């Protein structure tokens, strides 16, 4: 496989340095870590928002650092969790004295490393709360699994909680808003191809020319169902109906939608899907407050997409409309 990398071992390090070189007035990298924070961190007078996880999902995570969203993010290796000491350094660097909210995606490694770091930071007197995002409706949530995965809906948690923090709300209020998004958001993804990790250099799973995979996560792990290829509208219907069913969205409700590219899908196709998505919502008499289309949480070079729906109330609408200024998302 042809790839624009030098050495697989250096890819995350070099990516972070390149990001820093692109946004020197916005970002700062903590020495000897893979932790990126706002250039002016810690910001006084507001709750700080931190997150992190494996690399390969760009612009997630560090791409959402900036006004109205995150204060910092820890980057792990490709598809692997940052270690607890990196999370701890992140929390320390971002704590401005008004408390820190950690936004964690539901993967065992991320959860355990982040929770260990939080407990250590608390021993040092930092006030930390955390939320775990688990918006992937494809995975069954049962006693026998580790629960649903956190995927693209996480961006909406960054956005709403970030806007609430920017208003000067206290830690419990910021956390309440984050949880409100988590309770009202669902996502389902699909893939036309697997992705190629720098380490392995070949696709993580094989898909035939006439096959697609439904219910994929963001780590090249296989999905819940393999089917024959379908036209864009049929794929859109399948994903959207599953999400709407799961969220129990009713006619008359307002939503924010995301058509998220997995990294290797042209914007043209994402818009084709968004066209059908909005048409379908119209058929259900569901009103779209805002429709985002683009690459928000990717899986390296995977071809495919995910559809996210978040049911809104007046508070969430206001928070999603509030300004944000980050490399990965800008709302004016």
């Amino acid at each position, binding site marked *: 496989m042809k790839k624009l990398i030098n050495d697989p071992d250096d890819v995350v390090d070099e990516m972070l340095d390149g990001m820093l070189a692109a946004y020197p007035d916005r970002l700062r990298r903590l020495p000897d870590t893979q932790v990126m924070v706002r250039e002016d961190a810690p910001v006084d007078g507001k709750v700080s928002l931190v997150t992190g996880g494996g690399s390969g999902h760009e612009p997630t995570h560090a791409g959402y650092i900036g006004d109205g969203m995150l204060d910092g993010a820890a980057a792990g290796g490709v598809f*692997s*969790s940052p*270690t*607890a*000491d*990196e999370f701890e350094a992140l929390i320390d660097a971002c704590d401005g004295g008004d408390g820190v909210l950690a936004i964690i995606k539901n993967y*065992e*490694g991320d959860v*355990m*490393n982040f*929770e*260990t770091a939080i*407990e*250590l930071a608390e021993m040092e007197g930092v006030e930390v709360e955390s939320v775990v995002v688990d918006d992937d409706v494809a995975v069954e949530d049962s*006693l*026998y*699994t*580790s629960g649903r995965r956190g995927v693209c809906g996480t961006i909406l948690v960054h956005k709403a909680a970030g806007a609430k923090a920017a208003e000067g709300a206290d830690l419990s209020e910021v956390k309440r808003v984050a949880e409100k998004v988590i309770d009202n958001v669902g996502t389902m993804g699909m893939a036309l191809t697997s992705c190629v990790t720098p380490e392995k250099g070949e696709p993580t799973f094989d898909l035939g020319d006439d096959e697609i995979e439904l219910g994929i996560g963001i780590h090249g792990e296989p999905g819940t169902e393999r089917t024959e290829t379908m036209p864009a509208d049929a794929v859109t219907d399948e994903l959207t109906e599953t999400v709407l069913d799961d969220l129990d969205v009713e006619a008359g409700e307002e939503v924010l939608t995301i058509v998220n590219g997995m990294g290797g899908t042209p914007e043209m196709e994402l818009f084709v899907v968004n066209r059908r998505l909005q048409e379908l919502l119209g058929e259900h008499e569901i009103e779209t407050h805002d429709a985002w289309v683009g690459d928000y949480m990717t899986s390296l070079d995977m071809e495919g997409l995910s559809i996210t729906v978040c049911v809104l109330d007046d508070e969430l609408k206001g928070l999603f409309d509030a300004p944000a200024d980050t490399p990965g998302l800008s709302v004016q």
Partner: protein
Amino acid sequence: MSGDGEAVVAAVERVAERLEAERDHLTQLDSAIGDADHGGNMARGWAKAAETARDLDDPDPETVAKTVGKTLMAEVGGASGPLFGGSLVFAGAELEGGITPETAVAFAETYLEKVEDRGDARVGDHTMVDALTPAVHTFKKSIETDERPPLEALAKATDAAERGVAFTVPIRARKGRASYLGWRSVGHQDPGATSTLFILQELLRTVADRLDEPVPDVDATSPTIPDEDAGADGADAAPEGEE
């Protein structure tokens, strides 16, 4: 006190050697039900931890435990970093007053509690908790109720852990990566429970060496002190329980 610190460093070095020797064994167990990185991660992490511990200047046991825990957190990665390393940092605080039978029990209980909480796992989930729980319970009872010498208590704890490892084989995984396999996880020995046993075995050998005594031959399931109203079984075991 510094003597105890040295003993903890010696134990960590033994654990590091053992895990290096068992690297392929653990990787093999993990390949069957996980992502085949447990052997490498543990060997690398403990080697680094031993190196860091050796560099400490006249350390007390608490410092060694916390330093080793932090190193494991940073080096082992994945879920094992917080489980093996993070728990050690918190449990290490129990050794503030040095190592006594009482602080050793507190250390063991805190370690188990942290692993359970962090991993959200209990006995029967096919995880390291299946080895740790019988070990910690047996250790506590041997010290507190039966008032046995620490070496014997640790030997019983290690024997109990070995039974716990065997228990993981015929049960279905409910936590950890193996849980994604569902029923296919039945019939496989848990790698984390296995490495937990290796760590306990090396702790036991270090303590025996330090006391210049052989490793006691024990059976964790035989009572050391018979219950007053116990039947024939209790009476049979009575001689073993007496000093």
